[in-house]
């Protein structure tokens, strides 16, 4: 994963709430077995039908509950590959938020009024280290879990970090923790 810190530049605005992952990347594009090639299909129906126009700017601002619905990580891949580096909204769905952080794509939650001001300003600067978003005439701070922030700033690989704890996982499995749940390979 690539390290990120400062994301700066023009803002694209999608003034809708409850933008679900079925809109971000419609189901017919989920049949790929690769992680690439999704950018051109971002918001496929809305863009193709002329409902919206979006420039591939560094920052996307949208309405509340962005990324709701399906867990498809393809939604983050599509946003990233289209050209966005960060999404800013009054709320983001849980799974979508988590998927963003696994791809070096920055999810930022600001107040509704702050999102509107950033959208109106037309460009902005996100500073992850200092958890600050600024635009011409204003600025706001945002919350992010310290561990998620550390991994984003360092571009750290989650799996490699966890595999360093293999001894602890083995000890857990050897204790009572390993005894829960079915043995899938034992089914007829």
């Amino acid at each position, binding site marked *: 994963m690539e390290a990120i810190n400062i994301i700066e530049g023009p803002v694209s605005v999608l003034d809708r709430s409850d933008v679900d992952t079925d809109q971000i990347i419609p189901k017919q594009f989920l049949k790929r077995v690769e992680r690439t090639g999704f950018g051109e299909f971002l918001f496929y129906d809305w863009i193709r039908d002329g409902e919206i126009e979006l420039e591939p700017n560094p920052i996307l601002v949208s309405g509340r509950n962005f990324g709701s619905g399906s867990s*498809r990580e393809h939604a983050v891949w599509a946003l990233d590959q289209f050209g966005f580096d960060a999404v800013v909204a009054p709320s983001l*769905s849980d799974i979508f938020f*988590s998927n963003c952080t696994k791809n070096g794509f920055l999810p930022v939650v600001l107040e509704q009024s702050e999102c509107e001001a950033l959208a109106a300003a037309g460009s902005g600067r996100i500073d992850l280290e200092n958890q600050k978003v600024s635009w011409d005439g204003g600025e706001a701070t945002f919350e992010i879990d310290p561990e998620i922030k550390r991994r984003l700033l360092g571009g750290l690989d989650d799996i490699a970090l966890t*595999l360093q704890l293999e001894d602890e996982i083995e000890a857990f499995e050897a204790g009572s923790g390993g005894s829960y749940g*079915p043995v899938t390979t034992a*089914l007829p």
Partner: protein
Amino acid sequence: MPKTMFEKIWEAHEVREELIYIDLHLVHEVTSPQAFEGLRMTGRKLRRPDKTVATADHNVPTDGTPTAKLIADKLSRKQVQTLEKNAADFGVPVYSLGSETQGIVHVIGPELGLTQPGTTIVCGDSHTSTHGAFGALAFGIGTSEVEHVMATQTLVQRRPKTMRINYAGRLAPGVSSKDLILATIGKLGTGGMSGYVVEYAGEAIRALTMEQRLTVCNMTIEAGGRAGMIAPDETTYEYMRGKPGVPKDFEAAVERWRQLPTDEGATFDYEVEIDATGISPMVTWGTTPGMVVQVTDRVPDPAQMEEPAQRQSAERALQYMGLEAGTPIEEIRPERVFIGSCTNSRISDLREAAAAIKGRRVADSIRAMVVPGSAMVKRQAEEEGLDRLFEAAGFEWRGAGCSMCLGMNPDILIEGERCASTSNRNFEGRQGKGGRTHLVSPTMATAAAIEGHFVDIRSWN
């Protein structure tokens, strides 16, 4: 100190702070190929194939296509064949086309006895919350997390907040668990459970059968919830007893599971009270599951909504749905009816739908289909003669799969078609580009198929 059920499960699975051990990893063909590929590229093993199981569901044609290599759609075929190869390469049991136990991932887990109380369950699918009905902590993850679980059998997770919804009283006759959860989402909103693990509790929940409970937990994600849970009880154990994947010493396991329910006096971050007796059959009118009203209501008028974002969303939704504000719900006439999906495709759903037919026929204006959730449900239904009841009434009887819930297989709506659907999402284009989805219970869907419009099944015979 008294603990919630969630806290007990969470604490029993902490390898260390914020690193949670996963007991069961369910895998399907859409969200796994990039994860398997990641393992290959880094030379990593799949740590615990014995805690992993795969099935093909999203892409599966429901026309009886017997093997993956005969799937007509080239990309779907490749995705299912890739799953088969990946499972073989990494030693994971797989139920693909032609298997006697193939089916929707959230249907086969419970029916095989893999879904067990007190366990942690994940899947690259947002409807994984379904399994929480057994008193498990079950939630959807993205593909990067799928790879993480494959490689480490753990997940890096921050501890979520907890919510309990207490339902007072019981559901009225004719009102289903689908109506209960739709009404709950309508009340709390599409982000109302965001950030929370939700425990559904109270008399109405205790009175539900196991499969009705699965419907409730299934739709937790539609209100943004991380996971939905219901405490296990005799209903749970009775349902599990004799299923192939349950613990060998079942009675000893039951004794352990009896310790799981939330202790008296345990506290939640948020509690909600809902009067179950006041819930009616529900129908969605818009493009989120939160846009829902009682069948006896009318399509809402956006002009009367105070919040600008809500008004704007409602206006867009009505335009997309081709509906006028003020139209009585009972006057809405679907052209398609879909009974199926991980929400409502289990044997009891099909029994309920079939029982409502009572010798009548599907209206001439409607094409209706019934899609069992798994090959096992299909066999059971056919043994009971449900397939013949459906077909005699003019319903199509299909093979097992996700089918028209999400349009990744040949079962889709065409532009402008209106569908009464027992699935979980009415998003724009979810069932096919331009398709218009109304979410309802299986009995409500059956009644709509027969009458050609929505009806209040409480006064329908």
